[in-house]
């Protein structure tokens, strides 16, 4: 149908101005959820009305870590686990920049876990979007610090003997001042959360569950649509829920929502108060 084709070609992608279209196609597999989280994040940046030049995106290593490679703003694809300290350096050297860290659960919470808790403790004014696919996807499906107990991975073929992190509780205990959890199916909620995080001061942590059908689903007899159905049917939205009660009971119950949103001075505000007490 030539007419449809023509219409399609004439229509620009609504986020085209934020995409490095010369880098497409992206590396994400069919059925992967990272793209949905990424576009929700891009929508928030677009809707913020803030000049794109006042944003920077920082990623670590992994599938989600490729996010920084596709956004058409100043963007940094750093070493494994180190997106947050890189972002910290940017923010402290130029506090006018809105710094968004877009990375995965392995990158941010295992190898980079120390940086996550310390940036939260300092209330560093950055937004961290943690795409949680419960597995090391890029390397072929090894067990992660988020893999549910007894689930299979390429390094736990008989079942994961460990227990996963409750990431909102971890962020809360460390001092994060904004904490939310959604799934990639809740695209608008993700976008709203990112918008709130951009609009506020302080350390914001947004966990977004996302399927990895190739490397998690395949080994655990879970097709991509099964995961989405589970996200839909087994999730409960419970804003302000107690972080200690946010353990994911995978396949049975996942609590979503905005859990924490409190005001506290940021690192930069406190630093400037300590060193320039007469400025106020």
């Amino acid at each position, binding site marked *: 149908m030539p007419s449809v084709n023509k219409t399609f070609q004439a229509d620009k992608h609504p986020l085209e101005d934020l995409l490095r279209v010369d880098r497409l196609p992206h590396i994400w597999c069919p059925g992967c959820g990272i793209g949905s989280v990424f576009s929700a994040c891009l929508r928030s940046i677009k809707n913020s009305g803030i000049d794109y030049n006042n944003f920077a995106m920082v990623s670590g290593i992994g599938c989600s870590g490729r996010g920084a490679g596709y956004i058409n703003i100043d*963007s*940094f694809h750093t070493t494994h686990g180190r997106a947050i*300290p890189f972002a910290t350096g940017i923010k402290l050297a130029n506090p006018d*920049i809105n710094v968004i860290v877009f990375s995965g659960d392995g990158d941010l919470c295992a190898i980079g876990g120390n940086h996550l808790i310390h940036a939260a403790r300092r209330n560093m004014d950055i937004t961290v979007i943690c795409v949680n696919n419960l597995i090391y996807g890029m390397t072929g499906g090894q067990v992660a610090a988020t893999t549910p107990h007894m689930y299979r991975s390429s390094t736990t073929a008989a079942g994961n003997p460990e227990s996963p992190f409750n990431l909102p509780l971890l962020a809360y205990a460390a001092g994060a001042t904004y904490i939310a959890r959604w799934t990639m199916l809740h695209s608008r909620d993700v976008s709203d959360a990112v918008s709130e995080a951009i609009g506020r001061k302080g350390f914001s942590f947004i966990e977004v569950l996302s399927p990895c059908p190739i490397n998690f689903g395949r080994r655990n007899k879970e097709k991509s649509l099964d995961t989405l159905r589970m996200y839909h049917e087994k999730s409960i939205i419970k804003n302000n829920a107690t972080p200690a009660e946010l353990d994911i009971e995978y396949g049975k119950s996942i609590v979503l929502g905005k859990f924490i949103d409190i005001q506290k001075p940021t690192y930069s505000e406190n630093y400037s108060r300590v060193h320039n007490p007469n400025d106020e």
Partner: protein
Amino acid sequence: MKPAVCTGVHFINGDEACAEGAIAAGCKFFGGYPITPATEVAEQMSLRLPEVGGTFIQMEDEIAAMTSILGGAWAGCKTMTATSGPGFSLMMETVGLAVVTETPCVIVNVQRGGPSTGLPTQGAQSDMMQAKWGSHGDYEIIALAPSSPQEMFDFTIIAFNLSETYRTPVFIMSDEIIGHMSEKVIIPHKKKIKIINRKKPAKVKQGFKPFKPGANGVAPMPAIGEGYKVHITGLTHDEKGYPVMTVEAQEEMMARLLGKIRNNLDDIILTEDYLLNDAKIIIITYGVSARTSYTAVDEARSRGIKAGLLRLITVWPFPEELIRNLAKKAKGFITVEINMGQISREVERCAGGLAPCYLAGHAGGAIITPDKVLALMQEKF
């Protein structure tokens, strides 16, 4: 705001002089982590940076410290960190990221005895090869070795200038003895200090390539927020900064990274010679070991031995051609360094069998006395 250049005569230790040099060079961000014997650099930076409108942060580990200064550098600041052996090891992966993303920054290593925790409070020069090869992959790096608190000030400024000129991390390879030694340090007037700032791109933003080399092989560097929309990655990348996983892209990138150092050796390599013109026995040394080596040369001369000395201010890249030429007329080389043979092997490599090479070394924890150098001289020649 207080002045960045504390013009005057001071009695301070090497670590503090290093911090003053950094501030004088225009450093505005320091990410650090405490470690003996480099802690005083961080302490001084924490006092001084807020006075000049900069920011200090003590990160959670050396990996974070090193990574934070790369973020700061891309935000447009001159940045520095300081550490010693164990921290230097932790920083190494990120040093590679700095090399490949061509990010200017200065890393101070106040060396102590190793391996591992080693001798935290005692000096050594045993991280010299780690400075060259500590991060994985092929690369060229710049490292300077100061011999006094005064040079901790002076060379820190040179380190920033080289780093800004060549868009590359630069090491200051100091040691516990120089770091903790207090001496007279003269800080000149601001106008007498040569400062180089990174070259900024022309204002054309469309199709900007952050890795397209300029005349000296180095690409101009924009800062975050200036509208160039750069993408910077540790993956092998083209001049645009985009990842390209091909043999050709790897070759092109490596040629660029190595070339900007190898094609500018005359500008980067700094040495100092002492009684070298008629010397037959040539001491090669650097850092704290140069101090005792001068005495050894004087003592040898008083005994009628034609000794001379080449001090490496720039240790990396190594002055290969200079050593090669010296080997043609020398009776032999003695390398004086507080390790069990690191730079001495480089000297041997460059001498190429034309002259015998010996090491006056030490396992770490103390200086090498002139007596030891003299004894080796008399034993071997």
